[in-house]
């Protein structure tokens, strides 16, 4: 065992530890707006070179995928497709996002999802586009398949996106044309992991299982026509004159590697997403 300095754990150590704990608790109790400002400052200063480095690595990853795609074409893709399944999936995702970009009728920017660090951040993601690219707060964020969430904090080069899993998420939606309207939000409680709940639907509103629900454009944040999820059944908790439905989300935040951030306001995105029901 290594010789340790004596006394090893002094009063100074304890006091320093307690001071750090007090600072940490204070940070935890700091109002969200101040906490976001502090976090944003840290990201733009201390973490900026690291995030830039990470962005470069992500770019290298994309270039590698493209390079592999070209090489695979040259060498006959069929022979090696079985060995590059992961790359093929990444290619498919990139091609899909390119297809969505082509169909998107509004000014937007593509961004990469930067990595997650802690266990709690299923509710937020950080993307590689910020103030410099024209991103603004509350800008809708979509991916191939549907709605991801909206921009909450904008830094110079990055932005924090609140996904639909965030407790504050809510969107006005419609289904079956405009015959059914309601509000959708994350579902909480036992066994409710990663599901959405469609609330405030008229008691007479019937929605068959498998029906896709879309944003209705009401509320001013999300334009009309973005897929949110598919109905998976009626929930038991019928209250008053409304009923609720369980919704399987169209997008799982953990599976998203690239997103589109809508930069200009628009009313209708119908037609931009495939397989509209």
């Amino acid at each position, binding site marked *: *065992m*290594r010789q*340790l*300095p004596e006394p090893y*754990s*002094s009063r*100074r*150590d*304890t*006091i*320093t*530890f307690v001071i*750090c*704990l007090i*600072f*940490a*608790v*204070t*940070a*935890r*109790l*700091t109002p*969200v707006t101040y*906490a*976001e400002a*502090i*976090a*944003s400052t*840290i*990201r733009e200063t*201390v*973490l900026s070179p*690291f*995030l830039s*480095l*990470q962005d470069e*690595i*992500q770019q290298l*990853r994309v270039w590698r995928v493209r390079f592999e795609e070209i090489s695979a074409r040259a060498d006959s893709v069929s022979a090696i497709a079985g060995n590059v399944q992961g790359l093929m999936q990444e290619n498919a995702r990139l091609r899909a996002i390119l297809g969505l970009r082509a169909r998107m009728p509004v000014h937007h920017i593509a961004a990469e999802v*930067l*990595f*997650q*660090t*802690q*266990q*709690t*951040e*299923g*509710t*937020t993601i*950080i993307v590689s586009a910020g103030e410099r690219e024209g991103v603004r707060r509350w800008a809708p964020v979509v991916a191939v398949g549907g709605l991801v969430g909206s921009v909450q*904090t904008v830094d110079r080069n990055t932005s*924090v996106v609140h996904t639909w899993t*965030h*407790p504050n998420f809510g969107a006005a939606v419609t289904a079956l044309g405009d015959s059914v309207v309601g509000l959708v939000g994350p579902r*909480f409680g*036992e*066994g409710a*992991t990663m599901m959405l709940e469609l609330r405030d639907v008229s008691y007479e509103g019937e929605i068959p299982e498998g029906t896709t629900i879309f944003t209705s454009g009401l509320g001013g944040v999300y334009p009309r026509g973005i897929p949110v999820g598919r109905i998976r059944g009626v929930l038991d908790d019928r209250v008053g004159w409304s009923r609720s439905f369980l919704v399987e989300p169209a997008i799982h935040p*953990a599976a998203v590697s690239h997103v589109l951030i809508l930069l200009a306001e628009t009313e209708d995105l119908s037609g931009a997403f495939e397989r509209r029901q």
Partner: protein
Amino acid sequence: MNTQPSGFKVGLVLLALVLMHFTVRPLLGNDRLAPDFLLLALMFFAIRSRPANAAVAGFTVGILADALSPVAFGAGALAHTVVGYLQAWGKAIFFPDNLLVTSGFLFFGCWLRNFLVLLAGGQTRGAELFWALTAWSVGQAITTTVAGLLVLLTFRRWFKIGIIE
């Protein structure tokens, strides 16, 4: 960090771990299972430091982690401060120069960090919390420990770690 002759070399290893956190880790797949190199650097630092220094380092690392996941700002600072302090304090009781004991330190430290982050974050409840603690956190603790062992075995002389016969 202490002023042993290997201190500078260990510092380089810690710096490399910090860089790996932002370069290698994103390439390792699932974020919740990938080894946390930043935490690894903190724990290696803490095992070789006084509790006060380890607590300050833990707070610093935690705030940086919080900046990358602001939904529970402060939770990471709290968790990393406690883990850093306990790691430094624990070496007075156990035998940190032993590879197996160090593995236990790394595993417990990673799991405890995740537990405290989830607890202080307050965003995860019920079945989701259960799975986060028993599956994801244990998985990340294992991968982080394995990564830590690889670092220790590679730089064993610098870290002055022994192996039980």
